[in-house]
């Protein structure tokens, strides 16, 4: 079956005015061009530097593809261009990939978040490649005087019925002058030559040789460095400061106050960081200085209270509880978490009368550039933002606070300046995963789950969007999701798989316990519940019971669920988020009286896998990240101050703590779905459920390492 989508000719812009010659074809992601753009475009007015598009074909046939979305380690700089190359029909070895600039005229959705890049690019990127290919064919056909329909392509070579050939580079100039065809058909999935094959990270050679790639590596002539002193506690503001000692340090250029912050500008990073420590600042309390103990009590009060907002309500849970044979209720608790990107936050800014030049690692270039333009009261058109490769994102780089600081300092100093966070700055001036507590209550009547109520108490904000419609919505007759929050002055935000990163743990731990209560197999319980969702007419429910059952069955089979190996204990979890279905089985062994994770078997249905080599890396990393934070991630506050500031007091998972990971990708012809996040949420639950099997003790709070008494094994004779 061939797919095609209705395609607006005006969505294309083209030019052949490249210095190297060749065709540059652009596609305006999701929308037609602005009304002011009338094809055919006046190509003399375009140039490569200010017109940034997807495909550049040189006279020699080499192809440059521009990857518009930010690269945070999720691999889109490799996988998104693969979509174009597939339909353009060029050899992947002949493709160069370049990071696109922020360009709101020609690109849309230039952000990295929500595991959305590939899902949203799937049709339009392939359409871009297919349309360019058709234009090249049409040019060759005209040159030969034959019908375009008799021409075929293979890896950048066009062949006609007589067997004559022309390279893309031979016809690129003519192609650029042709009408842009409408509605070009896309390839059948079975004909893919690039999609579905392993492609290495396009930056691999630069990474292994230490070439400049990241924001922290960026340099320009005359650039200076800023280290910023911010209030040490949330809720404090600046009273006064003395910078005499700081200014006495050789290499310090200036000390600038802005907002409640003090920037030390120096000729190098070390001098700026060192001199900042000599600032003598006096802080005063502005709002509450909050501690984790306060939050724990406030969140429990919310769970016990009546200030909930109901996000979904099916049937009548109260009635179900009233008539139940058994009611099971559990509370699950999670701490704040910092993102801890290995590359600390940083950004370059240079503000001149003509423009605001910004360079650095940012997941949301457009929003950040617009925010800075507004803050500096400059037109957005004067902002030029270049994205660098990012040393991790995990949600932290959705927030442009560090870029705003750079712009403010650059605006005040008029110097080309890079703001560099120390690790301590990065960890203590975070935008954290909020601490959240869940209380789940289920009614059991005559061996069936008849009621399910999920209550969420969170710092600052609650689950959103479709999350209340995730499993087990639709599977249980009486179902309700209630949320409440406490507004704190501690900044919080998205952290890899927002909300679901801990909700999956709570829910999938709870279903494990429900199966124990019902005395049914834990995998079978989930399959039975999913059976009830089949044929549902509830359009809010996005997960597919069929696809979820399929990953569950395959995971159980591949992991040999229920196996009776000596000293092997298994835990199961399955979850749907970011449009992807995942099942995981954790195998735990007891070593020295403690349960130790040895293996995770993971089955993923994310539709067509564009780049399996990159996908496997994301999946393995997501699982280990999930296990690591469930085990060790702990971030608390005392009087508004974070108790950990660096990796000596904040533990991240390391090499000796990782299990073997076995991944199975479901074969699928369905459009691709998210992959950067969805394998993380179920990992903590699979682990805790395996620990329960091994020790007889159930973990309900993260991180597990805070509860050593629950990680000790009860002698086997007691478990029975």
């Amino acid at each position: 079956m061939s797919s095609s989508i209705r395609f607006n000719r005006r969505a294309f812009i083209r030019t052949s005015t490249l210095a190297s010659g060749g065709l540059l074809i652009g596609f305006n992601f999701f929308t037609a061009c602005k009304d002011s753009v009338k094809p055919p475009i006046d190509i003399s007015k375009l140039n490569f530097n200010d017109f940034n598009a997807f495909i550049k074909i040189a006279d020699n046939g080499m192809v440059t593809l521009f990857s518009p979305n930010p690269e945070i380690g999720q691999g889109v700089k490799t996988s998104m261009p693969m979509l174009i190359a597939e339909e353009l029909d060029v050899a992947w070895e002949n493709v160069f990939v370049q990071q696109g600039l922020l360009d709101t005229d020609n690109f849309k959705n230039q952000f990295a978040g929500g595991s959305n890049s590939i899902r949203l690019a799937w049709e339009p990127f392939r359409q871009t490649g297919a349309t360019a290919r058709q234009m090249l064919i049409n040019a060759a056909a005209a040159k030969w005087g034959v019908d375009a329909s008799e021409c075929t392509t293979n890896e950048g070579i066009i062949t006609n019925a007589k067997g004559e050939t022309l390279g893309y580079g031979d016809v690129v100039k003519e192609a650029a002058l042709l009408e842009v065809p409408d509605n070009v058909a896309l390839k059948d999935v079975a004909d893919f030559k690039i999609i579905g094959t392993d492609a290495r990270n396009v930056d691999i050679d630069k990474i292994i040789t230490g070439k400049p790639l990241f924001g922290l590596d960026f340099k320009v002539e005359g650039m200076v460095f800023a280290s910023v002193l911010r209030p040490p506690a949330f809720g404090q503001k600046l009273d006064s400061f003395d910078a005499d000692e700081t200014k006495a340090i050789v290499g310090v250029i200036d000390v600038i106050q802005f907002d409640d912050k003090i920037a030390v500008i120096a000729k190098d990073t070390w001098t700026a960081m060192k001199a900042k420590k000599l600032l003598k600042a006096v802080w005063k309390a502005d709002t509450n200085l909050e501690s984790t103990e306060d939050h724990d009590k406030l969140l429990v009060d919310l769970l016990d209270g009546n200030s909930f907002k109901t996000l979904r309500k099916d049937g009548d849970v109260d009635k179900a509880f009233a008539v139940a044979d058994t009611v099971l209720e559990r509370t699950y608790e999670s701490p704040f978490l910092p993102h801890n990107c290995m590359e600390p936050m940083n950004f370059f800014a240079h503000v001149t009368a003509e423009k605001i030049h910004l360079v650095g690692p940012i997941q949301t270039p457009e929003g950040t550039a617009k925010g800075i333009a507004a803050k500096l009261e400059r037109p957005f058109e004067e902002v030029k933002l270049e994205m660098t490769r990012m040393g991790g994102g995990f949600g932290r780089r959705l927030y442009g606070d560090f870029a705003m600081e750079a712009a403010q300092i650059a605006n005040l100093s008029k110097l080309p300046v890079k703001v560099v966070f120390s690790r301590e700055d990065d960890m203590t001036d975070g935008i954290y995963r909020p601490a959240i507590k869940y209380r789940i209550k289920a009614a059991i009547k005559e061996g069936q789950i008849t009621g399910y109520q999920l209550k969420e108490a969170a710092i600052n904000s609650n689950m959103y969007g479709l999350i209340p419609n995730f499993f087990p919505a639709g599977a249980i007759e009486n179902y309700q999701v209630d949320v409440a929050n406490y507004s704190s002055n501690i900044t919080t935000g998205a952290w890899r798989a927002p909300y679901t990163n801990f909700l999956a743990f709570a829910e999938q731990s709870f279903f494990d316990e429900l199966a124990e209560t019902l005395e049914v197999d834990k995998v079978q319980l989930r399959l039975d519940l999913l059976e009830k969702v089949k044929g549902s007419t509830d359009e809010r429910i996005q997960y597919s019971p069929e696809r979820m059952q399929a990953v569950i069955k395959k995971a159980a089979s591949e992991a040999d669920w229920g196996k009776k190996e000596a000293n092997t204990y298994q835990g199961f979890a399955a979850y749907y988020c970011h449009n992807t279905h995942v099942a995981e089985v954790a195998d735990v062994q007891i070593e020295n009286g403690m349960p130790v994770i040895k293996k995770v078997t993971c089955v993923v249905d994310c539709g067509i896998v564009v780049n399996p080599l990159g996908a496997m890396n994301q999946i393995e990393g997501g699982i280990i990240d999930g296990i690591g934070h469930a085990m060790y991630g702990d971030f608390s506050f005392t009087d508004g101050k974070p108790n950990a500031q660096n990796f000596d007091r904040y533990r991240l998972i390391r090499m000796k703590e990782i299990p073997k990971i076995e991944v199975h990708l479901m074969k699928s012809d369905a459009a691709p779905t998210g992959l950067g996040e969805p394998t993380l949420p179920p990992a903590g639950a699979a682990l805790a459920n395996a620990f329960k099997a091994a020790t007889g003790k159930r973990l309900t709070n993260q991180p597990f390492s805070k509860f050593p008494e629950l990680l000790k094994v009860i002698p086997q004779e007691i478990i029975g």
Partner: protein
Amino acid sequence: MPTYTLNLNGTSTTVEVSEDTPLLWVLRDHLNLVGTKYGCGIAQCGSCTVHLEGNAVRSCSLTMGQVEGKNITTIEGLSEDGSHPVQEAWKEVDVPQCGYCQSGQMMTAAAFLKTNAAPTDDEIKNAMHGNICRCAAYTRIHQAVAVAAKKMV
């Protein structure tokens, strides 16, 4: 400010910096060798790993006085063209996600493999335990060290 001379990637290099400047920042800001990364500044994460007389060390915690006259190798000097067995293995296995910590990981692996040509799985884990990878590409880091060991035989 004092001057220091070190043998950096096989070349005698002199630099004038304040005496408390860590080697890491001398490499990055003064000598334009940005392959060595800043991660924590307190020798906890391993992103800044370089070789001092062939041994893996944390450049964030070494002052210039400690490396004066010594042989230092950074990722840029591990090979001329990315052909060190560790670099080849990292490419073959396609280790990186974000890639930021990888030069430190490779420098640790390269120094380790000189001392142990045929490491066991547990020996690899022990050797690499000091280097954090926040993307958790540990499975591939482990695999690449094993591949590199075979290449070095």
